């Protein structure tokens, strides 16, 4: 193939380095968020090996934080996994948008790339990748993704280790809830986002008594319908 992907050589090294530099401004936020996730995991009744496994394998802060209260209250496994799935559904959009850049890679390499797709890396890559030749884009994405992975895992590890020394009375598991609030707030700025959150939350409150956390699942479905409807309503004249 004439346009084979470049993995080695000066141009590839430069593209990798550019990726790490481009994501560098996000490092403090990623570190802090990893730290909070680590602390919340350690304070929510997971043992250390479970917390490590979840952090390394799932590598999805929002889904991890969303799953924690469910794990702590021994919700049915199906509900916990379904909630994580719904929170992760946005990655399907990212995956679809990025597919064309990576489809010529081998299966293991595509798997590795997919593992690295997160919110920051996706947004950055979509914005910056056009500046690079297509054959350098995978290695550019690796620079972004690996830097993001290392920073996040370091924060999470620090949080896990620190939390072991903090007494549970401090209520640090609440940091996970505050982090979820911080994630929700920007979503409220768009009409469908607000509708999803308000209807999801309202129905969730109303159905809280249902067994097996069924209320959470039904409320989420209601919220998604509300978002799609809200986007369909005629817009006000500007």
């Amino acid at each position, binding site marked *: 193939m004439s346009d084979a992907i470049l993995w080695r050589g000066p141009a590839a090294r430069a593209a990798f380095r550019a990726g790490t530099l481009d994501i560098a401004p996000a490092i403090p936020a990623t570190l802090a968020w990893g730290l909070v996730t680590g602390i919340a995991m350690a304070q929510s009744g997971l043992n250390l090996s479970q917390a490590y496994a979840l952090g390394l394998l799932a590598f999805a802060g929002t889904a991890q934080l969303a799953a924690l209260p469910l794990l702590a209250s021994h919700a049915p496994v199906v509900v916990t996994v379904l909630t994580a799935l719904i929170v992760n559904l946005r990655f399907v959009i990212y*995956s679809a948008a990025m597919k064309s850049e990576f489809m010529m890679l081998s299966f293991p390499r595509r798997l590795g790339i997919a593992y690295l797709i997160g919110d920051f890396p996706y947004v950055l890559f979509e914005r910056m990748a056009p500046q690079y030749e297509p054959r350098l884009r995978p290695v550019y994405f690796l620079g972004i993704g690996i830097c993001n992975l290392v920073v996040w895992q370091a924060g999470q590890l620090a949080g896990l280790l620190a939390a072991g020394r903090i007494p549970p009375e401090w209520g640090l598991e609440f940091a996970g*809830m*505050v982090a979820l609030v911080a994630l929700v707030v920007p979503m409220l700025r768009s009409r469908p*986002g607000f509708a999803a959150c308000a209807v999801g939350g309202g129905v969730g409150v109303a159905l809280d008594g249902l067994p097996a956390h069924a209320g959470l699942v039904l409320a989420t479905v209601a919220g998604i319908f509300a978002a799609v409807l809200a986007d369909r309503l005629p817009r006000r004249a500007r």
Partner: protein
Amino acid sequence: MNDNLLTWFAIIGISLTTIVTRGSFVVFGSRLRLHRTVEEALRFAPAAALGALVLPALLLRHGHVDFSLENQRLLAAFIAALVMWRFGSMIWTIVVGMGIATLLRLMA
């Protein structure tokens, strides 16, 4: 089945959702075209799930909606949300939210 084993199942399941969603097109090469409605549903699913998770956790105490100042966590989370809305900083949101929650707990 014991709780420990169930927790492990949940951890494996959560991890699978990561690779299934991130890999849907990149790894598994789905040929589906995302219809506009489907894409909207996917895009706003997190807002719906997080709302459904966070609001009941903050509003309800002992099965009832509690808007009183006794509900310290609601107050702390609300102020944290205002910080996020105004300043957009994750770090300060968490610092303020946890600071207020701790203050209220110590004062109570």
